């Protein structure tokens, strides 16, 4: 009976997936998305799609690796969808100006604005990194970056993709890539200063 069932599922054991891999897949998704509901949705989608596609699983491959590869695709698709839907306004001149004026002088000088300027950190970096509280704040800050800028930042810094690969995956131009990366860095650094290093 058991063998029959395994054969039917192409060597996979879907009834055990959630217990076995749920947390690992969720951690993988959270590291890239930093938004709980989104991460949960994509992990659930992954299990369902994997079951539908069970015939494409190659015997002897690792179940976990296979599931992660499906999840990876879902994350990229999520980033991609986000980037075509509502976020193109990042490149609107007005939205761009509002954002930049917070950090830099409105006038052509382009110097740091008073409120947006980096300050020396009051806490040691190496010790901070070890703290769970800091990791939580870092994750919250990453979750606050608009999805498209977050996508660029994450694919670069977590997944180590090249800028060319990222542009291709997200279907954006190199100039969009630099603009998004600039925003992500400005916003992330400031968020950490406000919520951790400057406290």
């Amino acid at each position: 009976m058991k063998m029959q069932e395994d054969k039917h599922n192409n060597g996979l054991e879907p009834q055990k997936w959630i217990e076995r891999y749920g947390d690992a897949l969720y951690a993988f998704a959270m590291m890239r998305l930093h938004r709980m509901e989104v991460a949960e949705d994509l992990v659930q989608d992954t299990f369902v799609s994997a079951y539908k596609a069970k015939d494409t699983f190659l015997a002897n491959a690792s179940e976990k690796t296979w599931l992660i590869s499906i999840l990876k695709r879902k994350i990229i698709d999520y980033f991609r969808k986000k980037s075509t839907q509502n976020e193109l306004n990042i490149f609107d001149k007005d939205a761009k100006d509002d954002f930049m004026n917070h950090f830099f002088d409105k006038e052509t000088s382009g110097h740091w604005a008073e409120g947006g300027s980096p300050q020396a950190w009051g806490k040691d970096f190496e010790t901070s990194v070890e703290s769970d509280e800091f990791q939580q704040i870092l994750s919250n800050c990453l979750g606050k970056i608009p999805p498209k800028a977050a996508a660029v930042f994450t694919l670069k810094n977590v997944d180590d993709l090249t800028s060319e690969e990222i542009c291709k995956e997200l279907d954006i131009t190199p100039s969009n890539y630099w603009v998004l990366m600039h925003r992500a860095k400005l916003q992330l650094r400031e968020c950490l200063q406000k919520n951790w290093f400057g406290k």
Partner: protein
Amino acid sequence: MSLLKTLFANCRDVTFLHQKQREGKLSFAESIGYRLHLLYCKVCRLFIHQSEQIEKCVHHSNSKHKSELSADAKIKMQRALDNEMQ
């Protein structure tokens, strides 16, 4: 950007160019403007230092990330999967 503006990069330009610099994508003029600015701008040097620390830590927290699904989320997922398996 005109050549003159590139050579006299301001703080906004330099924070923008930082990623290009990291990826070895600065043009010759950009790289001069970038380096020249950093010679005299302490705040931008600070920005770059802090940003690079943050990026390194995002990269390393890779393995440290401990996220677990809530019991509720697992039940919901199991239900969705069971639905599919029927």
